[in-house]
């Protein structure tokens, strides 16, 4: 059974259809890269996958059911907003907040969750900066902390929205390596949104190219030449 299945799905924003004719499936352990230009509907599609908006046509089937509940156990790495950049919080607090859905009685985190937070920090190689202040980190470090937070929330898959935007060459390479590592060694299902096709190709198992509609979906080696134009 596939994790997510889109059948003729279309999503709208403020009554206008942004993206339509979506037909694709995500299996467990896959690495899907969604590519497309700015304004092609990537973010709208992402909201649809997260369950924040409903399809106006067709359907999105999550784990075999037409998912109604919002909580799908998706760990999500958003594009960074400006408000967060000057936020007084320790790295550990930020990572722990990924598990807000696992709060006991909605009030406190148990020891297992706290241990999981340390493991997540270890995975992104930030455990030594556990007590550092989030706002004093570099852009690449911040992004890795947010990745750890996404891992905390991830029970089914990781959804990454432009994870390398604003990062320098070195941090970008490191980020892609971490994501590939999570997919190959931790067997996590990854959905990454990117406008950088070339960087996505080597590690992704599937590519979804969107351009208001679904322009291409398949394995990277069978990708048609016209995606570059």
């Amino acid at each position, binding site marked *: 059974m596939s994790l997510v299945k889109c059948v003729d799905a279309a999503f709208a924003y403020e009554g206008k259809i942004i993206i339509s004719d979506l037909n694709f499936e995500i299996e467990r352990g896959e690495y899907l890269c969604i590519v497309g230009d700015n304004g092609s509907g990537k973010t709208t599609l992402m909201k649809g996958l997260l*369950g924040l908006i409903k399809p106006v046509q067709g359907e999105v089937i999550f784990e075999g059911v037409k998912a109604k509940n919002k909580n799908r156990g998706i760990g*999500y790495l958003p594009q960074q907003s400006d408000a967060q950049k000057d*936020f*007084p919080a*320790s790295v550990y607090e930020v990572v722990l907040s990924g598990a807000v859905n696992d709060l006991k009685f909605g*009030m406190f985190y148990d020891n297992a969750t706290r241990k999981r937070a340390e493991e997540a920090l270890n995975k992104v190689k930030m455990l030594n900066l556990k007590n550092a202040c989030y706002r004093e980190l570099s852009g690449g470090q911040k992004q890795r902390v947010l990745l750890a937070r996404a891992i905390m*929330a991830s029970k089914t898959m990781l959804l990454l929205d432009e994870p390398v935007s604003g990062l320098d060459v070195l941090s970008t390479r490191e980020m892609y390596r971490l994501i590939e590592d999570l997919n190959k060694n931790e067997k996590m299902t990854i959905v990454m949104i990117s406008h950088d096709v070339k960087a996505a190709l080597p590690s992704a198992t599937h590519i979804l190219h969107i351009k208001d509609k679904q322009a291409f979906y398949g394995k990277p080696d069978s990708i048609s030449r016209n995606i570059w134009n």
Partner: protein
Amino acid sequence: MTICFQEIFQYTFMQRAIIVGLFVSLCSALLGVPLVLKQYSMIGDGLSHVGFGALAVATALNLTPLPVAIVVVTVSAFILLRISEKAKVKADSLIALISTVSLAIGVVAVSMSSGMNMDINNYLFGSILALDKTDVYLAVVLGIVVIFTFFFLYHQVFSVTFDESFAKATGANVTVVNLIISIATALTIVIGMRIVGTLLMTSMIIFPALTSMRLCKSFKNVIICSSIVSLCGFLSGILISFFFDTPTGASIVLVNLAIFISFYLIKAVMIRIRLVKYKENK
């Protein structure tokens, strides 16, 4: 020192003011942190103006002012929050409109009921003499409710404050948390403005959070530090106002400003020291 405290506690009005003020400053410090970080500071300002309008109208109509104000301010808190969520761009101008309109309504109501007299000053700048027994009970009960709610929802408040869309995506009940924060803010403002006044109430909410954000590096420490700063600021402010016969609200605000400046300077000195050490090591 003991004599000085004995002198203060001889007066019932001072006892009341100190009890109410301590609860209000604790609540506003707790709520101030998420409000400032979410860039909702202006909502606090808007709410206190709405509170003024409600108090004035209630007095003019011969209703008990406090319950009316609580209902009106809570409803407006809900509306203001909705506005800020929906229309990010126009939110601040809309809030400015709402606060000035409420101020205008309040002033008209006051002038129609009794002419411009002492009352309007009490509302605008607060008066510790105006506190009665009901205010004290209300402040204690609401203060305890707000503090407990905050502690129970602490992690959810963090998550919603840090990243609302992430919290929503992971299934946190963002709307409920936001609603609770705004209702608690409304209640705190209604009670607090009896002491510091509608015009000055916002600074009780904003100052402690801004001050502690200078130095603290984790959310937990910001919360703890804000609470201490707020309580100290209130106590010193009210003592200064008692001994030097200055207006209470304004004194508290100025003490808060002094604390803010000292934190700012400490931070600057810390940065300078770090720079010097760095150069020495090189």
